């Protein structure tokens, strides 16, 4: 069942812009950033890594209103629960599908983006490792917030408020790894990411259950 949900969600994501969207998004930001702060190579190389992190965070949030709410509204989640799937399992499958739809494209886009921002090869490597570790956490966070706000009107502003405090640790450690060169900060990124991957399906599942009454 998990496989069927992942395949369906992936197919849906790819039909609605899909993999190109985060890719284009990251490249757009990487292309605009030098225009905004000026083509100073030292400045770009210093700030570029953090810029990539912010772009990755925003890319994970791009489809947040399409992750859970349409399926709740059309009864898909009801029907899955009826067939014995736990809400946590459904959210786990949706989280995996969401990550697959933006994580790998983002990592690919980080290569040309790194060139646009004149990042040193070792900085780019740290960013890539950090993104590979951190994006699953960001995907889980997006799923959690989407589940919490499913069924609410005008949830856009609320979404931002909920995401911000929970995303900050990943962002701090991810960008921190660039300044202090690595190891331990990346481990902390992985820790935050792992925590969110475990907590999001449980908490989001409880939210979906509560929302059904």
């Amino acid at each position, binding site marked *: 069942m998990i496989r069927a949900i992942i395949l369906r969600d992936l197919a849906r994501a790819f039909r609605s812009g899909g993999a190109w969207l985060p890719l284009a998004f990251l490249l757009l930001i990487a292309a605009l950033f030098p225009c905004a702060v000026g083509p100073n190579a030292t400045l770009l190389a210093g700030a570029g890594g953090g810029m990539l992190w912010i772009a990755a965070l925003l890319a994970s949030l791009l489809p947040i209103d399409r992750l859970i709410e349409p399926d709740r509204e059309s*009864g898909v989640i*009801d029907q899955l629960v009826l067939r014995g799937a736990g809400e946590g399992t459904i959210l786990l499958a949706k989280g995996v599908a969401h990550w697959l739809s933006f994580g790998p494209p983002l990592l690919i886009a980080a290569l040309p983006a790194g060139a646009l921002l004149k990042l040193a090869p070792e900085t780019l490597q740290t960013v890539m490792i950090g993104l590979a570790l951190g994006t699953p956490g960001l995907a889980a966070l997006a799923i959690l917030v989407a589940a919490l706000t499913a069924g609410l009107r005008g949830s856009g502003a609320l979404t931002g408020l909920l995401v911000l405090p929970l995303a900050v640790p990943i962002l701090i450690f991810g960008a921190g790894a660039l300044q202090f060169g690595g190891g331990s900060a990346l481990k902390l990124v992985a820790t935050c990411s792992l925590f969110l991957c475990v907590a999001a399906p449980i908490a989001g599942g409880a939210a979906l259950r509560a929302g059904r009454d």
Partner: protein
Amino acid sequence: MSGAHLSLQNLACLRGGRLLFAGVDLELRAGGSGQIAGPNGVGKSSLLRVVAGLLQPYAGSVAREGAVALADELDALDRDRTVHGALGFWARIDEAPLERIDAVLADLGIGHLADIPVRMLSTGQRKRAALARLMVSGAPIWLLDEPANGLDVTAAAALGPLVERHRTAGGIVLCASHLPLAWAQDVTITLAPPQEAGAE
């Protein structure tokens, strides 16, 4: 599916601080059919959702033997896929053979819509596609919520033989409807608006 069995005991449902119904008993064995009747807002759909396990009962218990399939006002079909594609997703989840989809669509008289996107369907056609999802699942216990809503007279009458066939095969049908149905009922539960305790 001969072992199908559905039993409700002293069921009560509380929603939004209001007791919708209480003391509902029902016993349906293989081949049985029941109707939940009553005016709008009396809790027919909630009762079906309790039976399906989507709502927790406030009191009482639901015992089911066999899988349930629910067709309510939500069709749960992806609007940007074709009817066949959207039903195929559910068939894969239910591990039902994909060939069954064509047979069921033909039974419901919408075989010609298989390759039309779900978003292009009319209300009645979408209702029939949702019924197709229920029939494809192969679950022995059917829970139908106002199955004739949006259907034209011919389509509503055509439901009768399909339900009878399901019952002959040992299935159970529990249907919430404020209108008389096109098939015979073993049991009819009429829900009445509860008397407000202590009101005036």
